[in-house]
């Protein structure tokens, strides 16, 4: 299956067919106004069976979905494109440390002694690490 077929086969991807490329998403996009990033072009390229670019520049702010006159879930589609891309090509470098931290602490960051000492001085309860997230990640990524 190509990218478009994979999107349409996913329950999250159904709204792709709503898009008529009007560009309302891009007109309101805070990233598009300061860079070459263009969500309209991402969706349009997928429909034309072309490889979309800049898929990691979406700020996930959902302004596009609020503006879209055809109820195309642009931001959710871009998340789906990211998931499909990761499955094929692996994770981009900047996400890897977050996942490593999740496995070792249960948080996206290395919460440890330093933070808990500060919290103790503030009379706040210590933050405990958990191995449950690691178990969830292992179980859900084996499939």
């Amino acid at each position, binding site marked *: 299956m190509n990218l478009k077929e994979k999107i349409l086969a996913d329950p*999250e991807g159904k709204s792709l067919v709503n898009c008529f490329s009007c560009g309302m998403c891009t007109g309101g996009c*805070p*990233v598009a106004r*300061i*860079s070459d*990033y263009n969500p309209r072009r991402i969706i349009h390229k997928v429909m034309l069976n072309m490889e979309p670019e800049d898929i*990691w*520049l*979406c*700020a*996930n*702010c*959902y*302004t596009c*979905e*609020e503006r879209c006159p055809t109820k195309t*879930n642009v*931001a*959710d589609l871009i*998340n789906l494109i*990211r*998931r499909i891309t*990761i499955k094929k090509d692996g*994770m*981009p470098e*900047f*996400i890897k440390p*977050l*996942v490593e931290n*999740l496995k070792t602490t*249960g*948080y*996206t*960051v290395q*919460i440890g002694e330093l*933070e808990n000492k*500060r*919290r103790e001085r*503030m009379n*706040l*309860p210590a*933050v*405990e*690490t*958990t191995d*449950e*997230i690691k*178990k*969830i*990640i292992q*179980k*859900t*990524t084996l*499939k």
Partner: protein
Amino acid sequence: MKKYAYYLGCTIPFRESNYDLSTRKVMDNLDVELVDLEGAGCCGLYYEQINELTHLAMSARVISMAESLGLDLMVLCNGCNGSLVKARNKLVENSELRDKVNEILADIDREFRGTSEIKHVIRILYEDIGIDEIKKTVKNPLNVKVAAHYGCHLLKPSEQIKFDDPREPKSLDELIEVTGAKSVDYFDKNLCCGGFVLGADKDIAYNMTGQKLQNVKDVGADLMITACPFCHVMYDANQRAIENELQKKFGIPVLHYPQLLGLAMGFNARDLALEQNRVRVNPGIFDS
């Protein structure tokens, strides 16, 4: 007495504990009881882009902790709010998906049932407690001009979150004005802080944050108020770096909303850990 399961997420205990402290102070003053969740971990937000099932299971795990206490879940972070609400909606609507997730949670002796609601602290203050009740606790009305920053996942996607109006929100403005402060309009008030693109492209993220700081400065606001720890990291902790990067000077103090409310309730700067805000806040500006 109102009571909530209290969820911090990742950013708050790691670098924004002043948000945690000030929230506990104001909730105590409003007779709201908070129950800490031990080893609560991450809501799964980043897994929305990696693996849907992992995201749903991580969110369901956090929600199940509140469910086992029979309480609704109070969240302080917009990112957690969006991630948890979206996951909860999906799992409530789709029993097949719910069974799949519960099969994963069974391994860690947890179960998602869909009995607890997810509520952002701003929503709890605005809807569950209400402006009138909050007004009764204001002992020290503040005389400052404030720029409200709602952030994204407090309001959007609105079809999922169902709170306030994402185009013309008023909840945070009203919560600011009840403290005596003036909530000022500014250009692009509803724009995103850019925090989510920080990892992928620092220049874009810094430009987005810097643009808003400039807009806030242009209307002469004394300070900015956030409702999300990561927006706060962008505007406050990263403000100096953004000034250097963009060769501009902003000098805008940025407070978590409960810090502002706490000052109006009569707590002092130390009670609210204002000294931990990176851009120096001169407590004198709040005197009327």
